[in-house]
């Protein structure tokens, strides 16, 4: 009797297993982004990126499907995003949360998901220490230090800047970004003579007083961080209006100030602006050209993807990878992290991976300069840095050096 029992049980087991696999499962995931209010275009861009991935990779999950539930985080601050996450976890029973444009959005969600053990894939928020806030989080976007530190080195070493002023939107990623620039710039022998807070992220201020103050310092370079979106065009326009290039101050920054969706509206103001960033739509790789083509086929020939859209696209690639890893079962934090920490992907921005230890993105950073070509603005890649890790965590600075949960 015993002889037959084991094969019988295993046969039953195999049957049960294959039964699970044949069952088409619907994976519910939550997507939190600013769908209304001043940053709605960022929410739209990120959602479009995510949905484009879903459309192009329909068959990838076999019979399983993904239902994306979108919730509005409205403002750059934390409370609304937190309430949205709470609702998604407790009422909608989502198995994963993604999206998250602004750093305070992501920070406010972290304590919640630590309790509920919901895996999170961050598609944008870039303050360096965020992944340290939860063992269940990974970030596919960027960290402020990737662009800021490299930009600081480049400004001092290649652009001949001996002194610099920084202007920043006064909230965590802004402080992060100028700290990164300062570190890179000073390490290469430069001197930062003034750091100017330029209002909060929610509202675009008249930039003139801040830029005029910067101009009066007569620095060789001005490094500016503002959140992508409404602020970007105001930066280039103010810089031009105050004739700062003529006065001898070069404008540099992370790619947020030359965001692809805002670029053409800047006109000649953006000509010559140098940025460090992980993506712009002019990258020549086959992956990127296919991505831009698919984007314009889906959203219209005049529509343009930018790094926020790529964040949404790659974020969804990560989500799909996690779901594939769950193999028809429930998507758990442990399971998702096992797949995602160490995950590699060929993104439109180049090869990316997630650092297994920190959960943060490792990717190329490009130095680009804006040029006018045939009545249009393009970004030319001048230099490429491969597989850049987050410098802040490498140097273990402040909150980057410790676990925050």
């Amino acid at each position, binding site marked *: 009797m015993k002889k037959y029992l084991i094969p019988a049980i295993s046969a039953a087991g195999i049957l049960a297993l294959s039964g699970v696999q044949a069952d088409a499962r619907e994976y519910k995931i939550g997507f939190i982004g600013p769908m209304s209010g001043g940053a709605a275009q960022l929410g739209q861009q990120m959602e479009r990126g995510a949905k484009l991935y879903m459309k192009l990779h329909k068959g990838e999950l076999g019979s399983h499907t993904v239902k994306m539930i979108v919730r509005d985080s409205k403002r750059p601050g934390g409370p609304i995003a937190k309430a949205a996450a709470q609702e998604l976890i407790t009422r909608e029973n989502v198995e994963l949360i993604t999206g998250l444009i602004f750093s305070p959005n992501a920070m406010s969600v972290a304590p919640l998901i630590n309790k509920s053990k919901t895996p999170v894939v961050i598609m944008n928020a870039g303050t360096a220490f965020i992944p340290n806030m939860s063992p269940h989080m990974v970030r596919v976007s960027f960290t402020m230090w990737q662009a800021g530190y490299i930009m600081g080195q480049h400004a001092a070493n290649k652009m001949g800047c001996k002194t610099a002023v920084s202007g920043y939107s006064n909230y965590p990623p802004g402080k992060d970004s100028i700290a990164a620039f300062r570190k890179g710039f000073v390490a290469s022998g430069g001197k930062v003579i003034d750091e100017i807070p330029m209002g909060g992220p929610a509202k675009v201020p008249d930039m003139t*007083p*801040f830029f005029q103050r910067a101009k009066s310092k007569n620095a060789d370079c001005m490094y500016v961080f503002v959140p992508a979106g409404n602020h970007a065009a105001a930066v280039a326009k103010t810089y031009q209006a105050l004739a700062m290039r003529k006065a001898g101050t070069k404008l540099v920054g992370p790619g947020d100030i030359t965001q692809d*969706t805002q670029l053409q509206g800047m006109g000649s103001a953006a000509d010559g602006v140098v940025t460090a960033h992980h993506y712009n739509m002019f990258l020549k790789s086959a992956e990127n050209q296919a991505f831009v083509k698919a984007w314009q086929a889906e959203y219209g020939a005049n529509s343009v993807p930018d790094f926020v859209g790529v964040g949404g696209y790659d974020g969804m690639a990560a989500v799909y990878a996690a779901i594939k890893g769950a193999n028809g079962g429930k998507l758990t934090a442990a399971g998702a992290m096992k797949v995602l920490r160490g995950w590699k992907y060929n993104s439109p921005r180049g090869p990316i991976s997630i650092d297994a230890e920190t959960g943060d993105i490792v990717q190329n950073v490009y130095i680009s300069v804006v040029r006018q070509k045939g009545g249009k603005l393009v970004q030319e890649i001048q230099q490429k840095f491969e597989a850049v890790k987050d410098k802040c965590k490498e140097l273990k600075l402040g909150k980057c050096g410790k676990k925050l949960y």
Partner: protein
Amino acid sequence: MSSFLIEITTVLVFGLAFSMLLFILSVGLSITMGLMGFANLAHGSFAMAGGYVTVSMVSKTGAPFAVALLVSFVIVALLSILFERVLYRHLYRRPELDQVLLTIGIVFASIATVTFIWGPDPQLILMPEYLSGSVDLGFNNFPRYHIFMIVAGAIIVAALFYGLERTNIGAQIRAAVDNRRMAESCGINTGRIFTWTFALGSGMAALGGGLGIQLLGGIKPVFALEYLVIFLIVIAVGGMGNIRGTFFAALILGIIDFAGKFYFPEGGAFIIFAVTIIVLLIRPHGLFGKA
């Protein structure tokens, strides 16, 4: 000495340009609140509509910037007459809460409408040659656009003062405000006066919306709400319905705001709130308001 001169002229010129924009944007609201006793929170929506008309004219039809501004003035003024006739006039004698509810509803509806038509991205236009670049005055240089803003603002201010103080229709408006019943007994059609005043104020807001595109980083759907607070501050400080008061309030707040941000970027944005509180503590009805 020369660096002091540079700083002083910088603060004055840039502050003045912002003041002019503030005045053009707020004066219409001051008129509707003071003259008609109507709390029109949707004032920013009319300004925003003006901005979008300007942007569309310039980028779609290639119209010159100045022409687009004038067209937006006319279109928005006409549009506001429609709103006044159909919606606002029923609420003139109703409590303020009703007025606020209606107009804030219009704000949200307008935000959704422009997002639907133009999308959430800020819309920008490339300025014509004569408005871009800067003017070098030897000791300091200034953006041409800011100079243009000051000149345009000065012309508008002068025209408004002349219109209200020296013309027959201006006298009728002032009469209607001071004592509506008496004005009506004298044969003044106050209903019509209010309609035209409202249209003028909304048209001015539209001009401000168009002029502000370059200074405020483009026109975008949240414009209607984002600048509401600053409109209300200008009016509270200046005194409702008082054009002279609105002008001086805009002047003071614009220059102080710039100076605050220039010298103390960390806390400069709050200085105008502090000034507002102090002014209202000393003069609760505003600088030129009637007690």
